[in-house]
């Protein structure tokens, strides 16, 4: 049953990137939850827009996203649901919104079931019957799963994998239960070793899913993009242009940037950490040398590298060096200063990249897979299975802004095609699935420990049931009758 007395949270605005997005919190603890989000002690003034900066939660990489938001508090009964409601308006990036969501959950809210706000509004007399038709649909959905069909289509593979895990877990449970309920059958339904092995494999499968969802989150929310190149090619200028802010110092002097400069950027709906670096060159200046070493550190952690070349210059040794150094990394090559007269470096860069299409086109031709060719294995581990390969070469002007939109799209594409597809509203299911998976994993670990301790089946079963319930919250409920049915279908039981 849905509880109707706790506090729920969800992204209230339609899926989409850009613009404004709203996270809605409803229930008795709505204001305290929002207070915790904003790090604010004093109560919100009803129906007034309050500006706040959401501070990143400590230690949570996924929440390492601070944001400017507007918080509005609607006390009961004059709110959408009739309960205390807080609406948090933020940048519409799904990444920002899901990060807010996660923090609200950390602060004690529960992720709403689809339609649950409407349900509450309806229960509190805020919607009339005709509007409540949607609620009726919700009521007819047999399981929470069915109510989430739309979400599940987005998350199809993940749910499929969870369903399979749940099914296999159910099978282990059935065998252990059968051992308890039919002790005089004269044969064992499952030995503790077999059960242990089955649980170990289930644990691995859940770990893999959890790992995958962590990786998906990294790509969507925490991707690190390093801008590298020879001195003076315009890295800092590009950095500022992409941020749309004068964050890094720009001068005509080569070797201006001496340290890593990191800034959160929102590119094409993707939240990422953009890193400006010191230009790579041999130098005797100890400060600059340290800066170059840090550039190399950045290369190691970066999920994507933007290699900047100066399009108005001849290709130098430093350019070649950095191209070679990044050849095995996921990268995008940027030819800067396209407002200046070209030097021919463009075709040279093409040559370096192994591209053989015309100099006038900045589009990658079909069948060109420079990254996969260069370092397929690394890409595989870094960004997962590759789909379409991103465009490798962009011509821009950091000064005039020409070509920047293209580059931004290219960066987003490079990050998403390499990893888990970035979709419009997967975060909702993801937070939920991840939390439930983690709970199941914990219970599974306890059950395994109990089994290893040679205790009787009913004790590990307590944990296994807990694991099963967590998974079934994603895949739909099962009852003890289903369990018995499963047993009787598989085993001939009864004297």
């Amino acid at each position, binding site marked *: *049953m849905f509880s109707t007395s706790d506090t729920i949270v969800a992204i209230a605005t339609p899926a989409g990137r850009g613009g404004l997005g709203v996270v809605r919190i409803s229930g008795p603890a709505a204001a305290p939850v929002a207070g915790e989000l904003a790090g604010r002690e004093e109560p919100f003034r009803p129906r007034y827009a309050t500006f706040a900066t959401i501070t990143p939660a400590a230690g949570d990489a996924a929440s390492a996203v601070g944001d400017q938001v507007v918080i509005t508090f609607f006390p009961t009964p004059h709110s959408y649901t009739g309960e205390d409601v807080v609406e948090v308006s933020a940048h519409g990036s799904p990444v920002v919104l899901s990060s807010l969501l996660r923090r609200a959950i950390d602060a004690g809210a529960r992720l709403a079931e689809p339609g649950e706000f409407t349900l509450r509004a309806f229960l509190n007399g805020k919607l009339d019957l005709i509007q409540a038709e949607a609620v009726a649909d919700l009521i007819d959905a047999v399981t929470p799963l069915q109510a989430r069909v739309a979400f599940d289509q987005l998350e199809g593979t993940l749910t499929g994998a969870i369903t399979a895990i749940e099914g296999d877990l159910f099978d282990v449970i059935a065998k252990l239960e059968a051992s308890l309920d039919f002790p005089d059958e004269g044969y064992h339904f499952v030995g503790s070793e077999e059960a242990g092995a089955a649980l170990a494999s289930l644990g691995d499968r859940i770990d893999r899913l959890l790992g995958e969802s962590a990786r998906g989150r990294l790509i969507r929310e925490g991707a690190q993009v390093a801008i590298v190149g020879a001195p003076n090619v315009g890295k800092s200028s590009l950095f500022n242009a992409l941020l749309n802010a004068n964050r890094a110092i720009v001068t005509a002097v080569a070797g201006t940037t001496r340290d890593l400069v990191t800034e959160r950027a929102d590119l094409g709906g993707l939240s990422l950490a953009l890193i400006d670096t010191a230009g790579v060159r041999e130098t005797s200046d100890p400060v600059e040398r340290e800066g170059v070493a840090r550039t190399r550190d950045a290369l190691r952690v970066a999920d994507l590298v933007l290699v900047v070349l100066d399009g108005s210059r001849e290709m130098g040794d430093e350019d070649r060096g950095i191209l070679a150094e990044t050849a095995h990394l996921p990268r995008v090559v940027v030819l800067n200063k396209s407002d200046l007269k070209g030097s021919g470096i463009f075709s040279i860069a093409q040559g370096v990249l192994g591209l053989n299409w015309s100099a006038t086109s900045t589009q990658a031709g079909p069948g060109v897979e420079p990254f996969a060719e260069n370092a397929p294995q690394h890409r595989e581990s870094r960004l997962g299975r590759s789909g379409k390969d991103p465009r490798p070469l962009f011509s821009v002007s950091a000064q005039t802004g020409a070509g920047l939109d293209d580059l931004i799209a290219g960066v987003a594409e490079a990050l998403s095609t390499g990893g888990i597809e970035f979709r419009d509203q997967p975060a909702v299911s993801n937070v939920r699935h991840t939390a439930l998976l983690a709970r199941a994993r914990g219970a599974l670990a306890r059950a395994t420990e109990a089994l290893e301790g040679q205790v009787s089946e009913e004790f590990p079963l307590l944990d296994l049931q807990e694991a099963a319930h967590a998974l079934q919250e994603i895949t739909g409920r099962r009852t003890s009758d289903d369990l018995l049915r499963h047993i009787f279908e598989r085993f001939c039981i009864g004297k």
Partner: protein
Amino acid sequence: MPCNPAIGGTAKGHLVREIDALGGLMARAIDATGIQFKLLNRSRGPAVWSPRAQADKGRYSAWVKAALEAEPNIHWIIGRAGRILLDGGRVSGLALEDGAVFPCGALVITTGTFLNGVIHVGQEQRPSGRAGEPPSRDLAESIKDLGMKWGRLKTGTPPRLARRSIDFEQGVKSGVFHVEHGDSEPIPFSFTATQSPMNTAVCHLLHTTDRVHQLVRSNIGASPLYNGQISGIGPRYCPSLEDKVMRFPDRERHQLFLEPEGLDVEEIYVNGFSMSLPVETQRELIHSLPGLESAEMLRPGYAVEYDFVQPTELRSSLETHRVAGLFFAGQINGTSGYEEAAGQGLLAGANAARSVLGRPPLVLGREEAYLGILVDDLVTKGCLEPYRMFTSRAEYRLLLRTDNADLRLTPRGREAGLVDDERWERYGRRRKRYDTNLDRIRKTWVRVEGGARVPAAQALKRPEVTLGSLVSAGDVVLETTPDDFALDTSSVETTVKYEGYLVRQEQAVARAQQAERRRIPEAFPFERVPGLSREMVQRFSETRPETLGQAQRIPGVTPAAVAVVGAYLNRF
């Protein structure tokens, strides 16, 4: 006892203990007339230890009959019930088939397999409640006239053999029979038992053979189960021989038990060999079993089909929703098994009396008793097949043990007027010992391996430490008597040893209580709840859940629908 004369077994043994804790007869009856006692699941944890015993069929029935006849307040009318009489929405009396009328304030119907019963043996079928007894047709009509929803189920029983015709010694010597004894220290069922029960009977284990399976297969067309003659649904946990062979072709053999129906009776019950094949085929099958080549078949096995009332017609008191004062109990409600029937009989009887006295019914929770689970499952889910109790039906299994059935239920039984003074005083002493011993164990310090001194309760959490060992080492002195020692140590030890798990279960109970405590009035107008679809209204109205907890358990009902009902509870 139309079938296997055995009482108890997994989860069923729990039911028997609970019936006893509430003042019922079953445990005392089997303790007095049992001939072989075993504790099932002894190698596992205390929550699933289940006593089982074989009864001397004749003595068991005679014991129960005598016990009932000794009750001064029972007035006997022996006849065939025909019609339920109503006055408005309330039961007003019962008419026998011969027309005699008996007015009453409450009525409990417990007709077992008799409603429109039909017995099948091969092609032969005859109306019958069970072997040798006519079915109840008038009463079936009368119940259907009330508009009750009903269905059809089937069950079966194996052939009986003549003891004198079986050479057990030879069978054992040649290795085809395996002797099964009772436990060396038989544990009685009843909390009031003061002596060790009789435990002398032996059973013999044997196995079916390929030849038996072939015979079944080649005669399957003559089985009413497989030729369409029977439409009722049978229990899957007690499959007929036909089902075993046809549905599990991979199994090379199945186990059978030869069980005496009494100490000095001729009938040997062939446990596991229930079937409805023609008599001749049954004889042939028996003679194909190793060691039974010349066994004499006294009575053939048969299948019986019967009507049952969908228990969703009932409230948790086992009173029908439709007719006040009318109660159903036992197999008529779709259950199967003596223990399930006895438990319902006890509750229905108590509640019939309480309804006449104008007192609230005795309803046990799922967290309180297997009996509570039994009733709750029946009234919320109905039956699609014969219902038998299993420990896996209990979500709070670790709390519902045979060792604490009295601690859980005797006070409830006393409140309901079911527990006499003697049992109540005995309970009082037991409870006091339990509390005292628990306290002692927490306060007595003992030395554990490695030399550290810890409270006995903490030492007991180690797998290798038992309360028995602490007591015999003189480290702990318990308040107990030799008679009570086993029970006293068992419940105290379990409470302490598994504390962590028990606490988790108690927390789960507490979480669920929110929904269990929210009552839905009997006349709640589900159809007036806005937004509920017709399907949901139908499911709710058919089952008439009494609490939000029950509403959640109705099959096919969605969480959102329950939430909507919950929100409207305070408005109508």
